[in-house]
């Protein structure tokens, strides 16, 4: 057998020459190159690896046979612990980006205490196991060279501080711009967009406003002095600790701007009939217990009430919602419970996370990160079919790409929520009824069971994806 035949590099893993992730026979492995030898040894010998993995701060790995390397020249091959789902910074709510920022600083401090340092500070180096942030790049550590400035400083400000400051001082929706700025929010743009009063905060003034000015002032230095000025800059160890203190204070002082949104108070404000809600809840529990799915996608999860039913029964559950405030609440709630199975994410189903980055392969689309064993689509269909004019056939196609089994609620036209959607617009949905809904979904799914929801005209359907030959 040729070792190279079955090894494929993970497409996002190409920037750092220290090594890369690859798949061999479906197993995720990390090749460490010889150039990283000193640092890998220090990571283990200093006790940093044990300290970080022991506290759940860093993804664990085990060393496997060198023959498994993807290409010659490997120092070691590691098999990292695999996470159930990798989320991206542009899908996080404010609290998640803030938690990831503080986690990065915590990891950096711990590294320093062990004579090491983070050589980057990308938000993509952090993932979430439920509400718990975890550092996922084992090769981000290098031996600390006292006097040298922190290489990751600029990245930390761009990936974390600038978007958090904008979300806190300008508008929460600015976090979504991280989808277009994969290397973080440009500091000159952040400085221009932030209100003037943020200059009164010494931390934000230094790390964003002054930082942007210094970047502009020194933009051409490398060409004129060949990098001499950058090489002359020194930062003492105590100075670096002070810098980390300052960044931490800056992040901790930020709170999300809290606009009133459509969904944040959904459960509190709707005239949802208690009995109907309870009945739906019981059906969801019944399905979860009968199927015991490993991965669940809850679409339109709001603050995660139903998603929690799944996570409590052992499923790693993604609670997707379009409303940043609802996701914020779901995350705060999951964090308070130290929930390691429920991961709320901001996701607009009418424009879900696409494949992004270099050659469209660096960051996977939502579909590429699925399919889930079970999908929940409760009180959602009308928002997509009527609120966004999506034909029922297309709706069925989309769900068939995302989940194996689907528990979906049909909300008929005379339901008060649909009446509200249609109140200010023409009803151009002659086919929006139960029969057309069932026919559309029957093309892609096999209907297993359906139940009416007492106290409402709504109906729940449990369906399984058709095999291509069906």
């Amino acid at each position: 057998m040729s070792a190279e035949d079955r090894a494929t590099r993970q497409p996002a893993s190409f920037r750092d020459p220290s090594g890369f992730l690859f798949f061999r026979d479906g197993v995720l492995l990390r090749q460490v190159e010889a150039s990283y030898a000193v640092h890998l040894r220090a990571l283990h010998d200093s006790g940093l690896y044990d300290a970080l993995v022991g506290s759940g701060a860093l993804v664990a790995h085990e060393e496997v046979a060198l023959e498994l390397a993807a290409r010659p020249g490997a120092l070691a091959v590691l098999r990292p612990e695999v996470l159930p789902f990798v989320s991206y910074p542009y899908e996080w709510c404010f609290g998640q980006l803030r938690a990831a920022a503080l986690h990065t600083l915590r990891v950096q401090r711990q590294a320093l205490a062990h004579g090491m340092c983070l050589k980057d500070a990308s938000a993509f180096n952090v993932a979430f196991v439920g509400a718990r942030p975890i550092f996922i790049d084992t090769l981000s550590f290098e031996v600390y060279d006292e006097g040298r400035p922190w290489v990751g400083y600029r990245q930390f400000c761009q990936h974390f501080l600038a978007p958090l400051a904008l979300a806190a001082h300008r508008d929460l929706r600015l976090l979504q711009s991280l989808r277009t700025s994969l290397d973080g929010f440009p500091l000159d743009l952040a400085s221009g967009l932030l209100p003037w009063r943020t200059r009164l905060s010494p931390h934000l003034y230094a790390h964003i406003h002054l930082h942007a000015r210094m970047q502009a002032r020194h933009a051409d230095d490398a060409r004129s002095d060949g990098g001499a000025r950058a090489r002359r800059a020194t930062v003492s160890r105590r100075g670096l600790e002070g810098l980390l203190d300052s960044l931490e204070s800056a992040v901790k002082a930020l709170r999300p701007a809290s606009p009133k949104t459509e969904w944040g108070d959904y459960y509190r404000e709707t005239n949802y009939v208690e009995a109907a809600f309870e009945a739906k809840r019981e059906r969801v529990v019944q399905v979860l217990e009968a199927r015991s799915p490993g991965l669940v996608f809850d679409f339109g999860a709001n603050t995660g009430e139903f998603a929690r039913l799944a996570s409590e029964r052992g499923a790693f559950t993604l609670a997707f919602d379009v409303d940043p405030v609802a996701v914020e609440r779901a995350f705060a709630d999951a964090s308070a419970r130290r929930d390691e199975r429920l991961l709320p994410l901001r996701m607009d189903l009418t424009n879900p996370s696409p494949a992004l980055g270099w050659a469209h392969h660096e960051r996977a689309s939502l579909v590429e990160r699925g399919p889930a064993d079970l999908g929940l689509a409760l009180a959602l269909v009308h928002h997509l079919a009527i609120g966004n004019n999506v034909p029922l056939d297309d709706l069925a196609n989309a769900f068939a790409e995302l989940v194996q089994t689907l528990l979906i609620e049909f909300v008929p036209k005379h339901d008060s929520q649909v009446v509200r959607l249609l109140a200010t617009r023409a009803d151009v949905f002659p086919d929006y009824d139960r029969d057309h809904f069932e026919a559309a979904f029957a093309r892609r799914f096999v209907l297993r069971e359906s139940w009416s929801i007492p106290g409402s005209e709504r109906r729940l359907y449990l369906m399984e994806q058709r095999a291509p030959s069906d």
Partner: protein
Amino acid sequence: MPTRTVLLVATLLVLAPASAQAYIDPGTGSYVLQAVVSAVAGSLVALRMYWQRIKAALGSRSESPPREVPESSESAARDPQDT
């Protein structure tokens, strides 16, 4: 930090490649700014440390034990949701 770790790190430093070039561009402006900000922030850390020592020396007669290091990695390792 235990002496063994210090020795180990010192050895590794000697072994480490002399020109530790970053694989990402740290940015000249970011480096220059960092040198300035960290000088200020570092003196604040030092001031606070001395202040803690003075406080500890004065207060040690009454209750709390003296603390040598004001910012330990443990102090930051409590809860991701620190609010």
